[in-house]
């Protein structure tokens, strides 16, 4: 049981670690794959915005 739990914890820690590293290393797609002229307003926060559930005023 200890070995099984250790494997689960290790898997979770590795996954979180990879997520942190990739987030730090990679650029957002709107930066990596478009030029400034192709971006509308505030990249990543335009049109709908980050909160898709917000009430439209």
């Amino acid at each position, binding site marked *: 049981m200890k070995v099984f739990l250790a494997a689960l914890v290790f898997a979770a820690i590795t996954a979180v670690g990879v997520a942190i590293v990739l987030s730090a290393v990679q650029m957002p797609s709107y930066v*990596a794959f*478009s*030029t400034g002229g192709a971006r509308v307003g505030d990249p990543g926060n335009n049109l709908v915005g980050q909160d898709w559930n917000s009430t439209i005023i």
Partner: protein
Amino acid sequence: MPSSLSKLRALSAAIVLLFAFAAPAAAQLSFKPTAEAVQEDKLLNALKEGDKISGRISIPDTMASSLIQPGGRDWRDFHRSKLPIIGGVAIIGMVALLAIFLMVRGRIRVEHGFAGTKILRFASFERFTHWLTASCFIVLALSGLNISFGRILILPLFGADAFSAMSTWAKYAHDYLAFPFMLGLIIMFLIWIKDNIPGKLDLLWIRQGGGILANGQHPPARRFNAGQKGIFWIVIIGGTLMSVSGWYLLFPYLPADVTTLQFWTVIHAVIAMLFIAAMLAHIYIGSVGMEGAFDAMGTGEVDLNWAKEHHSLWVEEEQAKGHAPSGTAPRAMPAE
């Protein structure tokens, strides 16, 4: 007069020629460009497999230059209609087969009963590697199946909001647990490859159906029998294909080509379905299907009689090394 006649002939010839060339010209004038030009089906059908209509772009995303790729329709059709059928047949078919096998054959018992003496089958690190890979695989399988079947099976049950939230987290889990899965796969390959090389003994094991089809038959086997070797190579080859194809899905701009990306998504999806079906059989025989088998990965130690019945040559090797007790008398079988 002859001059007038020749002029008349020349004029007649000119009129005939005029009509001869004017008729097609008139037909061309009746052509309606807008009626014929916007025939998307004709345009797409004219493109052969692998063809695409591309434009010229200045943004760094080179894949955005593909305007029309007819192969994408086949790819979409595969994912929407063919893949659920392949997956459904593979997974439900395997569950049905195992259920029938359990009903017909019953649970495979330890024929001579438990000896009460244990022998170490898998060390801690081996079990750690197994559970690392297995736990990741289960999450990857469930979150992957959600992509193929979730919209049909789960969305109507939980509603759009819950399904959306669940799918988002499942997608994160799928993306990031892929890395410890790949790590487990590499370690598994390194620590078990030496015991999983196919040999002549495996042919004998296969000829006797592994001894699982009839009571009392126990073909000799070393540490891993032919069935377990089969599972090992399914995991290694299937896992490698899943990893390579998954790498392209994780980093979709690596191939820099939509067609290549679509190819790897198909490989990923088909291998996944077959992989899941194979692992269902592995889970079955390692738990419900065979008495005493789960201990190997549970505690790491198996009953000596179980080991003698399923891995007789391995037990002899361990006894020769002094790693296992020898000469245990089997207990009487309990009355059933």
